[in-house]
């Protein structure tokens, strides 16, 4: 017992101060893209050619990155001769609108909150049922991390529950494989309205690395209306937490 208490003291307090304080992120973290349209070389389309998921759009000389498709892999950065594309350490990527994820520089409008009426129903708690539907399990891992002492999701009233019957909505990871389609729909319908739907990761938003495979749907919104998109492959836990808090109008 004394040993256990001593160890408790030694392990210390781990919970980060986010959202009050600014969290420290790795200097090489790849967050919101930085696009410098002026540096794009006329006639060049190398970024478009190398992008594994077709996330880059080039209309005339205007470059855009669909961060709902982006794997944050740096292939475009390496290919661009003029240095028009880069990545910042800004981890705030979530959005309530799919169109807003197509980003071409300038201000990014992070997630919008649920409407007042829904938020009143939820009060100060949000219970979610997670459905893993065909990705690589890294998104699941970084959703799980929110339950550790570092992020301590419970302090925001957010909790992952075992049954859809107890949930206010579902959080989906993975592109939704053909083999999971049925289970996703069943789970969704088992939850009582308002049934919020949150798509976490490139897979759940657009199909991610498996985009256009016949074995998958290109993301959850092919099947269900989505309230919140959280980009990344996988998103950093802070990106997920930031998105959830914005959805609840807490940021």
């Amino acid at each position: 017992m004394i040993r256990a208490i001593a160890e408790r003291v030694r392990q210390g307090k781990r919970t980060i101060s986010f959202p009050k304080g600014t969290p420290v992120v790795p200097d090489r973290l790849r967050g919101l893209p930085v696009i410098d349209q002026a540096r794009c070389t006329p006639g060049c389309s190398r970024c478009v050619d190398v992008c594994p998921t077709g996330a880059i759009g080039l209309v005339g000389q205007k470059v855009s990155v669909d961060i709902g498709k982006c794997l944050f892999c740096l292939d475009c950065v390496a290919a661009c001769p003029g240095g028009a594309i880069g990545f910042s350490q800004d981890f705030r990527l979530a959005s309530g609108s799919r169109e807003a994820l197509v980003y071409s520089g300038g201000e990014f409008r992070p997630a919008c909150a649920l409407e007042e009426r829904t938020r009143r129903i939820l009060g100060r708690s949000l219970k979610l049922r997670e459905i893993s539907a065909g990705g690589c399990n890294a998104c699941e891992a970084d959703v799980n991390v929110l339950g550790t002492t570092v992020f301590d999701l419970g302090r925001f009233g957010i909790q992952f529950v075992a049954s859809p019957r107890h949930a206010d909505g579902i959080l989906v990871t993975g592109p939704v494989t053909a083999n999971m389609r049925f289970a996703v729909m069943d789970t969704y319908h088992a939850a009582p309205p308002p049934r919020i739907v949150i798509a976490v990761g490139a897979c759940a938003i657009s199909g991610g690395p498996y985009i256009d495979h016949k074995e998958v749907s290109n993301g959850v919104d092919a099947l269900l209306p989505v309230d919140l998109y959280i980009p990344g492959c996988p998103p950093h836990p802070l990106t997920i937490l930031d998105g959830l808090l914005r959805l609840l109008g807490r940021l």
Partner: protein
Amino acid sequence: MMSDTKPARMKNAGVLALKDLTLLNIREFEDSVTGSLSAGGRLCALFGMPYRLGNSIMPSADVITLVAAIGHGREGVIEVAATEVKDSYPALTRHLPQANCFEREIAEQWGVRPAGHPWFKPLRFHRCYRPGRDAWTRPLDGEILPCVTDFFRVEGDEIHEVAVGPVHAGIIEPGHFRFQCHGERVFHLEIALGYQHRGVERAVTKGPDKRTLHYMETLAGDTTVGHATAYCQVIEALSGMDVPARAEDIRAVALELERCANHTGDLGALAADVGFLPTSSYCGALRGDFLNMTALICGNRFGRGLARPGGVSFDMDGSRGDDLVERLERTFRGVKGAAELLWETPSVMARFEDTGRLSKRMCRELGVVGMAARASGVEMDVRSEFPFGAYRISRPPVRTWFSGDVYARARVRWMEIEASYEFIRQRIRGLSKGPVMTDAPLEPSPDSMVVSLVEGWRGEICHVAITDQDGRFARYKVVDPSFHNWMGLQMALRDQQISDFPLCNKSFNLSYCGHDL
């Protein structure tokens, strides 16, 4: 060529010209595989491809070539043999349980029936890759629903069946479990997967292209570095690239960090499953510390974007190495304290000991790999048996335990964290100098074969590539360690309490997506 009845022999990540791949008739093939396995070999991969071998391989509509890769750990040699089959052939599984899932996969992908297979069921529930065929003669216009198939049943008074999944209570991947129980006691557990099937192997064919590496990094997200390294070794072997020593060091550091992160997370999850919260909450945070060390190197917690054919994309510049070692030492002290609490707490040990036992003999018979096999006393580890990259120069010692129970799998995890910790510190202190990327071109040689093995944190990762006359992949086979080990978990659960399933399951912590591909 081809008159020889001896299988060809290769080294880990060595190249074999396809003309030297011995084509045996089906009898010789069966004898050769059986002989190799009884001589102590292990089936690393067995797969089919719609091509015929020759000086140059040719696509074929009616013939499927089966290729077997068998690892001989003691000699560090991989034997490869091939045979041709049409609609049916005598199943190897009749005598070799290791072939079970491989043969079901061959049937599902190519519509070839392994005759006499004792438990002939689909594996991932998708359509055959050769249109118009189906090994189970299911209607060709109907839908294939996941896990709609026969299950093993025990009949009798008071026998009941418990079905769980695909959606489980926690945040975990989907799978379907059927327990045959008598009261609390489990007679038999059958696991049916395929929900995570997203068609990766099919999509990799004809590569490499701009997506290939990203498929490899997401075969099993928690094994990003392991699978990416296995793939890089394939391309580097095929292109004859020399990988700079510094890049190999950085890859090995990242691979060991991946091992530490997952093992630490599992120790925490095991503690949670027996209701011991201190270790569970410490390990949750400590696992994140390891992931953040990987992010310190490459910006991503899972190592995305680090390993690239020819080297690594990020250098350990400036004070990054010192920073990493400092964090590592701090985190290691934390894990040590958290793990020791487990061994010192009688209520934890009472649940760990003697639960979910898997014998050494069963491991060998089923071809169980990695940490799970080592916990049953099987001394095997790709890093020492088939050393690759930086492990050719130095490697952590192989850690085993004898009891094969949940305790052993927890204990071996801890011992491996200890060993990896020492190894990482050494590698960073003695980090080779020079570039981290070669400028040699990426040009896979035509009509060649490579078998690439890596010891991921779960165990042996095996990638096999076979190129056509243009140097494109005619076949790219991925074998995640989970592919071998799911059967081990099912056997470990026999005669256990059903309430111990979560604990047993966690003690293996297998990948669904790595299996389903």
